[in-house]
Protein backbone atom coordinates (compact mmCIF):
# COMPACT_ATOMS: atom_id res chain seq x y z
CA UNK A 1 0.00 0.00 0.00
CA UNK A 2 1.04 3.53 -0.82
CA UNK A 3 2.76 5.09 2.21
CA UNK A 4 1.47 8.58 1.35
CA UNK A 5 -2.10 7.28 1.58
CA UNK A 6 -1.39 5.69 4.97
CA UNK A 7 0.11 8.92 6.23
CA UNK A 8 -2.82 10.96 4.92
CA UNK A 9 -5.39 8.70 6.60
CA UNK A 10 -3.44 8.68 9.86
CA UNK A 11 -2.93 12.46 9.78
CA UNK A 12 -6.62 13.21 9.17
CA UNK A 13 -7.82 10.81 11.88
CA UNK A 14 -5.38 12.34 14.36
CA UNK A 15 -6.39 15.82 13.28
CA UNK A 16 -10.05 15.06 14.01
CA UNK A 17 -9.24 13.43 17.38
CA UNK A 18 -7.12 16.33 18.58
CA UNK A 19 -9.59 18.88 17.22
CA UNK A 20 -12.40 17.23 19.18
CA UNK A 21 -10.37 17.00 22.38
CA UNK A 22 -9.60 20.72 22.19
CA UNK A 23 -13.27 21.43 21.45
CA UNK A 24 -14.29 19.49 24.57
CA UNK A 25 -11.80 21.48 26.65
CA UNK A 26 -13.02 24.82 25.23
CA UNK A 27 -16.61 23.79 25.94
CA UNK A 28 -15.86 23.08 29.60
CA UNK A 29 -14.20 26.51 29.72
CA UNK A 30 -17.53 27.87 28.44
CA UNK A 31 -15.93 29.35 25.37
CA UNK A 32 -18.21 27.31 23.12
CA UNK A 33 -21.97 27.79 23.36
CA UNK A 34 -24.93 25.72 22.29
CA UNK A 35 -24.52 22.03 21.55
CA UNK A 36 -21.26 20.23 20.95
CA UNK A 37 -21.50 16.70 19.53
CA UNK A 38 -18.11 15.01 19.44
CA UNK A 39 -16.97 12.47 16.84
CA UNK A 40 -14.26 10.84 18.95
CA UNK A 41 -14.14 7.11 18.19
CA UNK A 42 -15.72 7.36 14.73
CA UNK A 43 -12.80 8.97 12.88
CA UNK A 44 -12.12 5.98 10.63
CA UNK A 45 -15.61 6.27 9.11
CA UNK A 46 -15.43 9.83 7.78
CA UNK A 47 -11.75 9.60 6.87
CA UNK A 48 -12.00 6.19 5.23
CA UNK A 49 -15.17 6.95 3.26
CA UNK A 50 -14.16 10.42 2.07
CA UNK A 51 -10.67 9.22 1.12
CA UNK A 52 -12.08 7.27 -1.83
CA UNK A 53 -13.70 10.37 -3.37
CA UNK A 54 -12.47 12.77 -6.00
CA UNK A 55 -13.47 16.01 -4.30
CA UNK A 56 -12.94 17.94 -7.53
CA UNK A 57 -16.29 16.55 -8.65
CA UNK A 58 -17.75 14.61 -5.68
CA UNK A 59 -19.83 16.11 -2.87
CA UNK A 60 -20.22 15.37 0.86
CA UNK A 61 -23.05 16.25 3.25
CA UNK A 62 -23.61 15.16 6.85
CA UNK A 63 -25.73 15.81 9.93
CA UNK A 64 -24.76 17.78 13.02
CA UNK A 65 -21.93 15.59 14.37
CA UNK A 66 -20.01 17.14 11.53
CA UNK A 67 -16.48 18.22 12.50
CA UNK A 68 -14.98 14.92 11.32
CA UNK A 69 -16.52 15.10 7.85
CA UNK A 70 -15.44 18.72 7.49
CA UNK A 71 -11.84 17.89 8.37
CA UNK A 72 -11.82 14.72 6.27
CA UNK A 73 -12.84 16.84 3.24
CA UNK A 74 -9.84 19.09 3.87
CA UNK A 75 -11.50 21.68 6.07
CA UNK A 76 -8.96 23.71 8.05
CA UNK A 77 -8.75 23.15 11.81
CA UNK A 78 -8.03 26.83 12.53
CA UNK A 79 -11.21 27.94 10.74
CA UNK A 80 -13.09 25.13 12.50
CA UNK A 81 -11.98 26.14 15.99
CA UNK A 82 -12.73 29.79 15.14
CA UNK A 83 -16.25 28.73 14.16
CA UNK A 84 -16.74 26.97 17.51
CA UNK A 85 -15.71 30.17 19.28
CA UNK A 86 -18.18 32.16 17.14
CA UNK A 87 -15.52 34.18 15.37
CA UNK A 88 -15.80 36.07 12.07
CA UNK A 89 -12.89 34.00 10.72
CA UNK A 90 -14.76 30.72 11.26
CA UNK A 91 -15.56 28.27 8.48
CA UNK A 92 -19.12 29.67 8.47
CA UNK A 93 -18.11 33.15 9.63
CA UNK A 94 -19.47 32.44 13.10
CA UNK A 95 -23.01 32.08 11.73
CA UNK A 96 -23.09 28.28 11.75
CA UNK A 97 -21.61 26.92 14.96
CA UNK A 98 -20.64 23.36 15.85
CA UNK A 99 -23.57 21.73 14.03
CA UNK A 100 -23.19 23.78 10.86
CA UNK A 101 -19.63 23.58 9.55
CA UNK A 102 -19.25 24.27 5.81
CA UNK A 103 -16.38 24.18 3.34
CA UNK A 104 -18.09 24.46 -0.02
CA UNK A 105 -14.82 25.03 -1.93
CA UNK A 106 -13.74 21.57 -0.79
CA UNK A 107 -17.24 20.28 -1.61
CA UNK A 108 -18.26 19.79 2.02
CA UNK A 109 -21.89 21.00 2.09
CA UNK A 110 -22.52 20.93 5.90
CA UNK A 111 -23.38 20.36 8.79
CA UNK A 112 -27.29 20.05 9.15
CA UNK A 113 -29.27 19.99 12.39
CA UNK A 114 -32.64 18.39 11.62
CA UNK A 115 -32.36 14.61 11.72
CA UNK A 116 -32.84 13.04 8.30
CA UNK A 117 -33.83 16.32 6.61
CA UNK A 118 -30.44 16.64 4.95
CA UNK A 119 -30.88 13.36 3.10
CA UNK A 120 -33.23 14.64 0.36
CA UNK A 121 -30.99 17.71 0.13
CA UNK A 122 -27.94 15.50 -0.40
CA UNK A 123 -29.95 13.58 -3.01
CA UNK A 124 -30.46 17.00 -4.63
CA UNK A 125 -26.69 17.45 -4.92
CA UNK A 126 -26.59 14.08 -6.67
CA UNK A 127 -29.56 15.13 -8.81
CA UNK A 128 -27.58 18.15 -10.01
CA UNK A 129 -24.55 15.97 -10.76
CA UNK A 130 -26.69 13.78 -12.97
CA UNK A 131 -28.56 16.74 -14.51
CA UNK A 132 -25.23 18.17 -15.62
CA UNK A 133 -23.98 14.83 -16.96
CA UNK A 134 -21.05 14.95 -14.53
CA UNK A 135 -19.83 11.62 -13.23
CA UNK A 136 -19.64 13.07 -9.73
CA UNK A 137 -21.04 11.23 -6.72
CA UNK A 138 -22.50 12.45 -3.40
CA UNK A 139 -21.79 10.87 -0.01
CA UNK A 140 -24.46 11.48 2.63
CA UNK A 141 -23.61 10.63 6.25
CA UNK A 142 -26.32 10.04 8.85
CA UNK A 143 -26.64 8.46 12.27
CA UNK A 144 -28.58 5.37 13.29
CA UNK A 145 -31.07 7.75 14.92
CA UNK A 146 -32.14 8.97 11.44
CA UNK A 147 -33.47 5.70 10.06
CA UNK A 148 -37.04 6.03 11.33
CA UNK A 149 -37.92 9.50 10.12
CA UNK A 150 -39.81 10.25 6.90
CA UNK A 151 -37.15 12.06 4.85
CA UNK A 152 -34.79 9.06 5.25
CA UNK A 153 -37.29 6.99 3.30
CA UNK A 154 -38.29 9.72 0.85
CA UNK A 155 -34.65 10.37 -0.01
CA UNK A 156 -33.92 6.70 -0.70
CA UNK A 157 -37.18 6.21 -2.58
CA UNK A 158 -36.47 9.15 -4.91
CA UNK A 159 -32.76 8.36 -5.25
CA UNK A 160 -33.63 4.85 -6.40
CA UNK A 161 -36.48 6.02 -8.66
CA UNK A 162 -34.43 8.74 -10.35
CA UNK A 163 -31.20 6.69 -10.31
CA UNK A 164 -29.16 9.31 -8.48
CA UNK A 165 -25.41 8.86 -7.90
CA UNK A 166 -25.47 8.85 -4.10
CA UNK A 167 -24.23 6.72 -1.22
CA UNK A 168 -26.02 6.99 2.11
CA UNK A 169 -23.78 5.99 5.02
CA UNK A 170 -25.39 5.14 8.34
CA UNK A 171 -22.78 5.60 11.04
CA UNK A 172 -24.28 3.18 13.51
CA UNK A 173 -22.90 4.13 16.93
CA UNK A 174 -25.74 2.20 18.57
CA UNK A 175 -27.34 5.14 20.37
CA UNK A 176 -29.82 7.73 19.17
CA UNK A 177 -28.89 10.28 21.84
CA UNK A 178 -29.45 8.08 24.91
CA UNK A 179 -31.78 5.49 23.39
CA UNK A 180 -30.15 2.20 22.43
CA UNK A 181 -30.70 0.83 18.95
CA UNK A 182 -32.71 -2.17 20.10
CA UNK A 183 -35.43 0.20 21.32
CA UNK A 184 -35.65 2.08 18.00
CA UNK A 185 -35.09 -0.53 15.29
CA UNK A 186 -36.55 -4.05 15.10
CA UNK A 187 -33.49 -5.37 13.29
CA UNK A 188 -29.75 -5.51 13.78
CA UNK A 189 -29.18 -5.12 10.05
CA UNK A 190 -29.90 -1.48 9.26
CA UNK A 191 -29.13 -1.58 5.55
CA UNK A 192 -32.08 -3.94 5.15
CA UNK A 193 -34.17 -0.79 4.85
CA UNK A 194 -32.81 -0.30 1.34
CA UNK A 195 -34.56 -3.41 0.09
CA UNK A 196 -37.93 -1.83 -0.53
CA UNK A 197 -36.83 0.85 -2.99
CA UNK A 198 -34.80 -0.99 -4.38
CA UNK A 199 -31.16 -0.03 -4.20
CA UNK A 200 -27.86 -1.64 -3.33
CA UNK A 201 -26.90 -2.18 0.29
CA UNK A 202 -23.81 -3.14 2.21
CA UNK A 203 -22.44 -3.36 5.74
CA UNK A 204 -19.06 -2.60 7.27
CA UNK A 205 -18.93 -4.85 10.30
CA UNK A 206 -15.69 -3.36 11.60
CA UNK A 207 -15.94 0.38 11.17
CA UNK A 208 -12.78 0.88 13.21
CA UNK A 209 -10.82 -0.58 10.31
CA UNK A 210 -10.32 2.36 8.00
CA UNK A 211 -9.40 0.02 5.13
CA UNK A 212 -12.59 -1.95 5.50
CA UNK A 213 -14.56 1.32 5.32
CA UNK A 214 -12.59 2.37 2.24
CA UNK A 215 -13.18 -0.89 0.44
CA UNK A 216 -16.94 -0.93 0.91
CA UNK A 217 -17.45 2.75 0.17
CA UNK A 218 -15.18 2.48 -2.87
CA UNK A 219 -17.48 -0.20 -4.34
CA UNK A 220 -20.58 1.84 -3.54
CA UNK A 221 -19.10 5.01 -5.05
CA UNK A 222 -18.09 3.08 -8.19
CA UNK A 223 -21.66 1.73 -8.47
CA UNK A 224 -23.05 5.26 -8.14
CA UNK A 225 -20.55 6.73 -10.59
CA UNK A 226 -20.78 4.09 -13.27
CA UNK A 227 -24.34 2.83 -13.09
CA UNK A 228 -26.18 5.56 -11.13
CA UNK A 229 -27.24 2.98 -8.57
CA UNK A 230 -27.57 4.38 -5.03
CA UNK A 231 -26.37 2.35 -2.04
CA UNK A 232 -27.28 2.33 1.64
CA UNK A 233 -24.26 1.33 3.74
CA UNK A 234 -24.29 0.63 7.45
CA UNK A 235 -20.93 1.17 9.14
CA UNK A 236 -20.73 -0.16 12.69
CA UNK A 237 -18.81 2.22 14.91
CA UNK A 238 -18.90 3.68 18.43
CA UNK A 239 -18.71 7.13 19.96
CA UNK A 240 -16.66 7.36 23.14
CA UNK A 241 -18.32 10.51 24.44
CA UNK A 242 -21.94 11.20 25.29
CA UNK A 243 -24.39 12.39 22.66
CA UNK A 244 -23.31 15.95 23.33
CA UNK A 245 -21.18 17.60 25.98
CA UNK A 246 -24.32 17.89 28.12
CA UNK A 247 -24.60 14.09 28.22
CA UNK A 248 -22.43 12.07 30.63
CA UNK A 249 -23.51 8.88 28.84
CA UNK A 250 -24.67 7.04 31.95
CA UNK A 251 -26.87 4.74 29.85
CA UNK A 252 -23.73 2.77 28.97
CA UNK A 253 -21.45 0.82 31.29
CA UNK A 254 -17.82 1.84 31.76
CA UNK A 255 -16.85 -1.65 30.61
CA UNK A 256 -18.73 -1.22 27.31
CA UNK A 257 -16.98 2.08 26.58
CA UNK A 258 -13.58 0.71 27.60
CA UNK A 259 -14.07 -2.33 25.36
CA UNK A 260 -14.77 -0.02 22.44
CA UNK A 261 -11.73 2.11 23.23
CA UNK A 262 -9.56 -1.02 23.22
CA UNK A 263 -10.39 -1.31 19.50
CA UNK A 264 -9.56 2.34 18.80
CA UNK A 265 -9.29 3.09 15.09
CA UNK A 266 -6.37 5.51 15.38
CA UNK A 267 -4.30 3.27 17.64
CA UNK A 268 -4.96 0.46 15.20
CA UNK A 269 -3.69 2.39 12.19
CA UNK A 270 -0.75 3.63 14.27
CA UNK A 271 0.21 0.04 15.08
CA UNK A 272 -0.01 -0.83 11.42
CA UNK A 273 2.44 1.97 10.63
CA UNK A 274 4.80 0.52 13.22
CA UNK A 275 4.61 -3.00 11.85
CA UNK A 276 5.47 -1.53 8.45
CA UNK A 277 8.57 0.02 10.02
CA UNK A 278 7.11 3.53 9.87
CA UNK A 279 7.31 4.39 13.60
CA UNK A 280 9.27 7.55 12.94
CA UNK A 281 6.65 8.74 10.47
CA UNK A 282 3.91 7.98 12.98
CA UNK A 283 5.62 10.10 15.62
CA UNK A 284 6.29 12.88 13.14
CA UNK A 285 2.64 13.05 12.07
CA UNK A 286 1.42 13.10 15.68
CA UNK A 287 3.81 15.96 16.46
CA UNK A 288 2.82 17.88 13.34
CA UNK A 289 -0.87 17.58 14.19
CA UNK A 290 -0.13 18.72 17.75
CA UNK A 291 1.60 21.86 16.45
CA UNK A 292 -1.17 22.46 13.91
CA UNK A 293 -3.81 22.36 16.65
CA UNK A 294 -1.76 24.72 18.84
CA UNK A 295 -1.51 27.21 16.00
CA UNK A 296 -5.18 26.76 15.15
CA UNK A 297 -6.12 27.47 18.73
CA UNK A 298 -4.07 30.66 18.79
CA UNK A 299 -5.69 31.73 15.53
CA UNK A 300 -9.19 31.04 16.84
CA UNK A 301 -8.62 32.73 20.20
CA UNK A 302 -7.05 35.82 18.66
CA UNK A 303 -9.68 36.22 15.91
CA UNK A 304 -12.39 38.85 16.21
CA UNK A 305 -16.05 38.24 16.87
CA UNK A 306 -18.38 39.38 14.08
CA UNK A 307 -19.07 43.11 14.34
CA UNK A 308 -22.54 43.92 15.73
CA UNK A 309 -23.34 45.90 12.59
CA UNK A 310 -23.06 42.68 10.55
CA UNK A 311 -25.87 40.96 12.49
CA UNK A 312 -28.23 41.15 9.51
CA UNK A 313 -25.72 39.90 6.94
CA UNK A 314 -26.25 36.67 4.97
CA UNK A 315 -30.05 36.81 5.17
CA UNK A 316 -30.74 37.40 1.48
CA UNK A 317 -28.57 37.73 -1.60
CA UNK A 318 -29.14 41.14 -3.11
CA UNK A 319 -28.02 41.82 -6.68
Amino acid at each position, binding site marked *: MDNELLFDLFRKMNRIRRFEEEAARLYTERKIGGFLHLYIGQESVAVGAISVLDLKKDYVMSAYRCHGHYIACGGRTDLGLAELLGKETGCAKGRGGSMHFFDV*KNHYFGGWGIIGAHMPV*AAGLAFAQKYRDSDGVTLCFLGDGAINIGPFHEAMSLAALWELPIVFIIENNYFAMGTPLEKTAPTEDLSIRALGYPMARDTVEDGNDVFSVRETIHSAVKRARESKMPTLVEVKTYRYRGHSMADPGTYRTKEEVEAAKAKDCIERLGKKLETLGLSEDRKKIVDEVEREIETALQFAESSNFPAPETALDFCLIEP
Partner: protein
Amino acid sequence: MTREIPIRDALKEAMSEEMRRDDRVFLVGEEVGAYNGAYKCSKGMLEEFGPKRVIDAPIAENGFAGIAVGAAMVGLRPIVEFMTFNFSLIAIDQILNTAAKAHLMSGGQLSCPMVFRGAGGAAYQLGAQHANSFEHFYAYTPGLKVIAPSTPYDMKGLLKSAIRDDNPVCFFESELTYSLKGPVPEEEYIIPIGKGDIKKEGSDVTLITWSKNVFLTLKVAEKLSELGISAEVLDLRTLRPLDTELIFNSVAKTHRCVIIQEQHSVASFGAYLSHLIQSSIFDELDAPIEVVSCLEVPMPYSRKLEEVILPSEERCIEAVRKVCG
Protein backbone atom coordinates in the same frame (compact mmCIF):
# COMPACT_ATOMS: atom_id res chain seq x y z
CA MET B 1 -49.57 43.46 -28.68
CA THR B 2 -51.66 42.60 -25.66
CA ARG B 3 -54.09 39.70 -25.52
CA GLU B 4 -56.39 38.36 -22.80
CA ILE B 5 -55.10 35.11 -21.29
CA PRO B 6 -55.99 33.15 -18.15
CA ILE B 7 -53.65 32.99 -15.18
CA ARG B 8 -52.72 29.34 -15.85
CA ASP B 9 -51.39 30.36 -19.28
CA ALA B 10 -49.60 33.38 -17.85
CA LEU B 11 -47.81 31.08 -15.39
CA LYS B 12 -46.96 28.59 -18.12
CA GLU B 13 -45.57 31.36 -20.29
CA ALA B 14 -43.43 32.65 -17.43
CA MET B 15 -41.97 29.20 -16.71
CA SER B 16 -41.49 28.28 -20.37
CA GLU B 17 -39.82 31.57 -21.27
CA GLU B 18 -37.42 31.26 -18.36
CA MET B 19 -36.66 27.62 -19.21
CA ARG B 20 -35.85 28.59 -22.79
CA ARG B 21 -33.63 31.37 -21.51
CA ASP B 22 -31.74 29.35 -18.87
CA ASP B 23 -31.17 25.60 -19.02
CA ARG B 24 -30.52 25.48 -15.26
CA VAL B 25 -34.26 26.03 -14.68
CA PHE B 26 -36.43 22.92 -14.29
CA LEU B 27 -39.94 22.16 -12.99
CA VAL B 28 -40.66 19.38 -10.49
CA GLY B 29 -43.87 18.40 -8.73
CA GLU B 30 -46.82 16.05 -8.66
CA GLU B 31 -48.62 15.76 -12.02
CA VAL B 32 -46.63 18.56 -13.67
CA GLY B 33 -45.61 16.48 -16.70
CA ALA B 34 -47.86 13.96 -18.42
CA TYR B 35 -50.98 15.26 -16.66
CA ASN B 36 -50.05 18.87 -17.61
CA GLY B 37 -50.37 20.04 -14.01
CA ALA B 38 -53.23 19.44 -11.58
CA TYR B 39 -54.52 22.88 -12.65
CA LYS B 40 -52.99 22.72 -16.16
CA CYS B 41 -50.39 25.38 -15.42
CA SER B 42 -47.69 23.34 -17.21
CA LYS B 43 -49.73 22.29 -20.24
CA GLY B 44 -47.45 21.27 -23.09
CA MET B 45 -44.25 21.83 -21.13
CA LEU B 46 -43.28 18.15 -20.95
CA GLU B 47 -43.59 18.01 -24.73
CA GLU B 48 -41.40 21.07 -25.20
CA PHE B 49 -38.74 20.46 -22.53
CA GLY B 50 -38.75 16.69 -22.03
CA PRO B 51 -38.76 14.60 -18.83
CA LYS B 52 -35.32 15.78 -17.74
CA ARG B 53 -36.65 19.31 -17.09
CA VAL B 54 -40.36 18.73 -16.44
CA ILE B 55 -40.28 16.10 -13.76
CA ASP B 56 -43.25 14.15 -12.44
CA ALA B 57 -42.58 13.48 -8.77
CA PRO B 58 -44.18 10.85 -6.58
CA ILE B 59 -46.27 12.07 -3.65
CA ALA B 60 -43.33 12.91 -1.37
CA GLU B 61 -43.26 16.66 -0.78
CA ASN B 62 -40.40 16.68 1.72
CA GLY B 63 -38.38 14.46 -0.60
CA PHE B 64 -38.78 16.33 -3.88
CA ALA B 65 -38.68 19.76 -2.26
CA GLY B 66 -35.49 18.73 -0.44
CA ILE B 67 -33.95 17.44 -3.67
CA ALA B 68 -34.75 20.76 -5.33
CA VAL B 69 -33.11 22.62 -2.43
CA GLY B 70 -29.95 20.54 -2.83
CA ALA B 71 -29.93 21.06 -6.60
CA ALA B 72 -30.26 24.82 -6.05
CA MET B 73 -27.27 24.79 -3.67
CA VAL B 74 -25.04 23.70 -6.53
CA GLY B 75 -26.39 26.18 -9.04
CA LEU B 76 -29.53 24.75 -10.65
CA ARG B 77 -32.68 26.90 -10.48
CA PRO B 78 -35.60 24.63 -9.59
CA ILE B 79 -39.29 25.51 -9.69
CA VAL B 80 -41.13 23.29 -7.20
CA GLU B 81 -44.88 23.05 -7.78
CA PHE B 82 -46.96 22.11 -4.77
CA MET B 83 -50.33 20.92 -6.00
CA THR B 84 -51.54 23.24 -3.28
CA PHE B 85 -49.70 24.99 -0.48
CA ASN B 86 -51.71 22.87 1.95
CA PHE B 87 -49.29 20.07 1.06
CA SER B 88 -46.28 22.34 1.54
CA LEU B 89 -46.59 21.63 5.27
CA ILE B 90 -45.03 18.22 4.58
CA ALA B 91 -42.06 20.08 3.10
CA ILE B 92 -42.10 23.13 5.35
CA ASP B 93 -38.94 22.00 7.13
CA GLN B 94 -37.07 22.01 3.82
CA ILE B 95 -38.35 25.52 3.06
CA LEU B 96 -38.02 27.20 6.47
CA ASN B 97 -35.15 25.24 7.96
CA THR B 98 -33.02 24.37 4.95
CA ALA B 99 -33.63 26.72 2.00
CA ALA B 100 -34.22 29.88 4.03
CA LYS B 101 -31.20 29.35 6.28
CA ALA B 102 -28.54 27.83 4.01
CA HIS B 103 -27.06 31.20 3.05
CA LEU B 104 -26.71 32.40 6.64
CA MET B 105 -25.64 29.11 8.21
CA SER B 106 -22.86 28.68 5.65
CA GLY B 107 -21.63 32.23 6.17
CA GLY B 108 -22.60 33.08 2.60
CA GLN B 109 -21.07 30.01 0.92
CA LEU B 110 -24.42 28.55 -0.15
CA SER B 111 -27.49 30.01 -1.82
CA CYS B 112 -30.81 28.50 -2.91
CA PRO B 113 -32.04 30.21 -6.07
CA MET B 114 -35.42 28.53 -6.42
CA VAL B 115 -39.20 28.97 -6.44
CA PHE B 116 -41.84 27.09 -4.47
CA ARG B 117 -45.18 27.76 -6.16
CA GLY B 118 -48.75 26.53 -5.98
CA ALA B 119 -52.31 27.35 -5.07
CA GLY B 120 -53.49 28.42 -1.64
CA GLY B 121 -56.65 29.48 0.11
CA ALA B 122 -60.28 28.43 0.00
CA ALA B 123 -61.90 27.49 -3.29
CA TYR B 124 -65.54 26.45 -2.89
CA GLN B 125 -65.89 23.75 -0.30
CA LEU B 126 -62.48 22.09 -0.31
CA GLY B 127 -62.94 21.20 3.35
CA ALA B 128 -60.77 21.99 6.34
CA GLN B 129 -57.47 20.43 5.18
CA HIS B 130 -57.39 21.90 1.67
CA ALA B 131 -58.52 25.48 2.27
CA ASN B 132 -55.65 26.98 4.24
CA SER B 133 -54.06 30.30 3.47
CA PHE B 134 -50.45 29.99 4.63
CA GLU B 135 -48.64 33.03 3.20
CA HIS B 136 -47.89 34.30 6.69
CA PHE B 137 -46.03 31.10 7.69
CA TYR B 138 -43.53 31.87 4.96
CA ALA B 139 -43.66 35.65 5.26
CA TYR B 140 -42.64 35.16 8.91
CA THR B 141 -39.32 33.67 7.84
CA PRO B 142 -36.22 35.78 7.17
CA GLY B 143 -34.30 34.33 4.23
CA LEU B 144 -37.38 33.87 2.04
CA LYS B 145 -39.19 36.13 -0.40
CA VAL B 146 -42.97 35.77 -0.54
CA ILE B 147 -45.13 36.76 -3.50
CA ALA B 148 -48.94 36.54 -3.75
CA PRO B 149 -50.15 38.33 -6.90
CA SER B 150 -53.67 38.61 -8.30
CA THR B 151 -53.90 39.39 -12.05
CA PRO B 152 -52.53 37.40 -15.01
CA TYR B 153 -50.20 40.33 -15.80
CA ASP B 154 -48.75 40.40 -12.28
CA MET B 155 -48.54 36.60 -12.05
CA LYS B 156 -46.42 36.36 -15.19
CA GLY B 157 -44.12 39.30 -14.52
CA LEU B 158 -43.51 38.34 -10.92
CA LEU B 159 -43.01 34.62 -11.55
CA LYS B 160 -40.30 35.48 -14.09
CA SER B 161 -38.60 37.68 -11.49
CA ALA B 162 -38.94 34.93 -8.88
CA ILE B 163 -37.23 32.39 -11.16
CA ARG B 164 -34.36 34.83 -11.79
CA ASP B 165 -33.98 35.71 -8.10
CA ASP B 166 -30.97 34.27 -6.26
CA ASN B 167 -33.01 33.55 -3.11
CA PRO B 168 -35.70 31.00 -2.25
CA VAL B 169 -39.09 32.47 -3.22
CA CYS B 170 -42.56 31.26 -2.21
CA PHE B 171 -45.12 32.13 -4.89
CA PHE B 172 -48.82 31.88 -4.03
CA GLU B 173 -51.60 31.30 -6.56
CA SER B 174 -55.31 30.46 -6.15
CA GLU B 175 -57.39 27.56 -7.43
CA LEU B 176 -60.28 29.94 -7.98
CA THR B 177 -58.49 32.27 -10.35
CA TYR B 178 -56.51 29.96 -12.67
CA SER B 179 -59.19 30.54 -15.36
CA LEU B 180 -59.46 34.25 -14.74
CA LYS B 181 -58.44 36.20 -17.85
CA GLY B 182 -56.68 39.51 -18.12
CA PRO B 183 -54.49 41.51 -20.47
CA VAL B 184 -50.90 40.27 -20.87
CA PRO B 185 -48.52 41.70 -23.47
CA GLU B 186 -46.95 39.35 -25.96
CA GLU B 187 -43.62 41.11 -25.51
CA GLU B 188 -41.40 40.02 -22.67
CA TYR B 189 -41.60 41.96 -19.40
CA ILE B 190 -40.80 41.41 -15.74
CA ILE B 191 -42.19 43.00 -12.57
CA PRO B 192 -39.74 43.67 -9.75
CA ILE B 193 -40.25 41.75 -6.49
CA GLY B 194 -41.14 43.98 -3.54
CA LYS B 195 -43.34 46.50 -5.38
CA GLY B 196 -47.06 46.79 -4.64
CA ASP B 197 -49.60 48.20 -7.06
CA ILE B 198 -52.54 50.57 -6.71
CA LYS B 199 -55.33 48.67 -8.45
CA LYS B 200 -57.83 51.53 -8.00
CA GLU B 201 -57.13 55.07 -6.86
CA GLY B 202 -59.26 56.64 -4.15
CA SER B 203 -59.15 59.33 -1.48
CA ASP B 204 -61.24 58.32 1.55
CA VAL B 205 -59.86 54.96 2.69
CA THR B 206 -57.01 52.57 1.75
CA LEU B 207 -58.00 48.95 1.34
CA ILE B 208 -54.88 46.76 1.55
CA THR B 209 -55.03 43.22 0.27
CA TRP B 210 -53.22 40.61 -1.86
CA SER B 211 -53.79 37.45 -3.86
CA LYS B 212 -57.33 36.70 -5.04
CA ASN B 213 -58.91 38.97 -2.43
CA VAL B 214 -57.87 41.85 -4.70
CA PHE B 215 -60.92 40.95 -6.82
CA LEU B 216 -63.23 40.89 -3.80
CA THR B 217 -61.79 44.20 -2.69
CA LEU B 218 -62.34 45.82 -6.10
CA LYS B 219 -66.01 44.80 -5.89
CA VAL B 220 -66.16 46.26 -2.40
CA ALA B 221 -64.66 49.51 -3.71
CA GLU B 222 -67.36 49.69 -6.39
CA LYS B 223 -70.11 49.28 -3.82
CA LEU B 224 -68.44 51.89 -1.61
CA SER B 225 -68.40 54.38 -4.44
CA GLU B 226 -72.18 53.93 -4.73
CA LEU B 227 -72.28 54.85 -1.04
CA GLY B 228 -70.17 57.93 -1.72
CA ILE B 229 -66.91 56.54 -0.29
CA SER B 230 -63.83 56.72 -2.51
CA ALA B 231 -61.64 53.69 -1.72
CA GLU B 232 -58.07 53.13 -2.87
CA VAL B 233 -57.28 49.45 -3.48
CA LEU B 234 -53.66 48.57 -2.76
CA ASP B 235 -52.49 45.15 -4.02
CA LEU B 236 -49.34 44.25 -2.08
CA ARG B 237 -48.28 41.62 -4.68
CA THR B 238 -45.18 40.89 -2.56
CA LEU B 239 -45.46 40.27 1.20
CA ARG B 240 -41.73 39.94 1.82
CA PRO B 241 -39.99 42.24 1.15
CA LEU B 242 -42.86 44.64 1.73
CA ASP B 243 -43.48 47.86 -0.23
CA THR B 244 -43.80 50.03 2.86
CA GLU B 245 -43.38 53.24 0.89
CA LEU B 246 -46.49 52.57 -1.20
CA ILE B 247 -48.47 51.59 1.90
CA PHE B 248 -47.45 54.62 3.94
CA ASN B 249 -48.02 57.05 1.05
CA SER B 250 -51.50 55.72 0.44
CA VAL B 251 -52.52 55.75 4.10
CA ALA B 252 -50.98 59.23 4.51
CA LYS B 253 -53.30 60.32 1.70
CA THR B 254 -56.55 58.66 2.88
CA HIS B 255 -55.85 58.64 6.65
CA ARG B 256 -57.95 55.49 7.01
CA CYS B 257 -57.11 51.87 6.40
CA VAL B 258 -58.79 48.47 6.20
CA ILE B 259 -56.77 45.29 5.62
CA ILE B 260 -58.54 42.38 3.95
CA GLN B 261 -56.97 38.93 4.27
CA GLU B 262 -57.95 35.30 3.88
CA GLN B 263 -56.23 34.30 7.10
CA HIS B 264 -57.29 33.96 10.69
CA SER B 265 -56.55 37.17 12.51
CA VAL B 266 -54.41 35.85 15.39
CA ALA B 267 -50.68 36.18 14.58
CA SER B 268 -51.53 36.94 10.95
CA PHE B 269 -49.92 39.05 8.25
CA GLY B 270 -52.74 41.58 8.52
CA ALA B 271 -52.10 41.93 12.24
CA TYR B 272 -48.44 42.68 11.48
CA LEU B 273 -49.34 45.20 8.76
CA SER B 274 -51.72 46.95 11.10
CA HIS B 275 -49.01 47.21 13.75
CA LEU B 276 -46.45 48.42 11.22
CA ILE B 277 -48.70 51.19 9.91
CA GLN B 278 -49.79 52.46 13.30
CA SER B 279 -46.28 52.40 14.75
CA SER B 280 -44.76 54.09 11.69
CA ILE B 281 -47.33 56.76 10.73
CA PHE B 282 -49.64 56.98 13.74
CA ASP B 283 -50.19 60.70 13.25
CA GLU B 284 -51.57 60.15 9.76
CA LEU B 285 -54.39 57.92 11.01
CA ASP B 286 -57.84 59.35 11.67
CA ALA B 287 -59.23 56.03 12.92
CA PRO B 288 -57.96 52.68 14.21
CA ILE B 289 -57.09 50.20 11.44
CA GLU B 290 -59.58 47.40 10.84
CA VAL B 291 -58.53 43.92 9.69
CA VAL B 292 -61.09 41.71 7.96
CA SER B 293 -60.05 38.06 8.33
CA CYS B 294 -61.37 34.53 8.31
CA LEU B 295 -63.31 33.70 11.45
CA GLU B 296 -61.41 31.70 14.09
CA VAL B 297 -62.41 28.15 13.23
CA PRO B 298 -61.07 25.50 10.82
CA MET B 299 -62.92 25.75 7.51
CA PRO B 300 -66.05 23.57 7.50
CA TYR B 301 -67.27 21.97 4.27
CA SER B 302 -70.78 23.38 3.86
CA ARG B 303 -71.02 26.30 1.45
CA LYS B 304 -73.23 28.31 3.77
CA LEU B 305 -70.66 28.06 6.56
CA GLU B 306 -67.72 28.78 4.25
CA GLU B 307 -69.42 32.01 3.17
CA VAL B 308 -69.77 33.09 6.78
CA ILE B 309 -66.14 32.39 7.61
CA LEU B 310 -64.41 33.95 4.59
CA PRO B 311 -64.13 37.74 4.25
CA SER B 312 -67.29 38.90 2.47
CA GLU B 313 -68.31 42.13 0.75
CA GLU B 314 -70.66 42.80 3.65
CA ARG B 315 -67.97 42.38 6.32
CA CYS B 316 -65.55 44.55 4.33
CA ILE B 317 -68.10 47.31 3.89
CA GLU B 318 -68.97 47.15 7.57
CA ALA B 319 -65.26 47.54 8.42
CA VAL B 320 -64.95 50.52 6.09
CA ARG B 321 -68.01 52.15 7.63
CA LYS B 322 -66.41 51.70 11.02
CA VAL B 323 -63.14 53.42 10.07
CA CYS B 324 -64.96 56.13 8.09
CA GLY B 325 -67.63 56.68 10.73
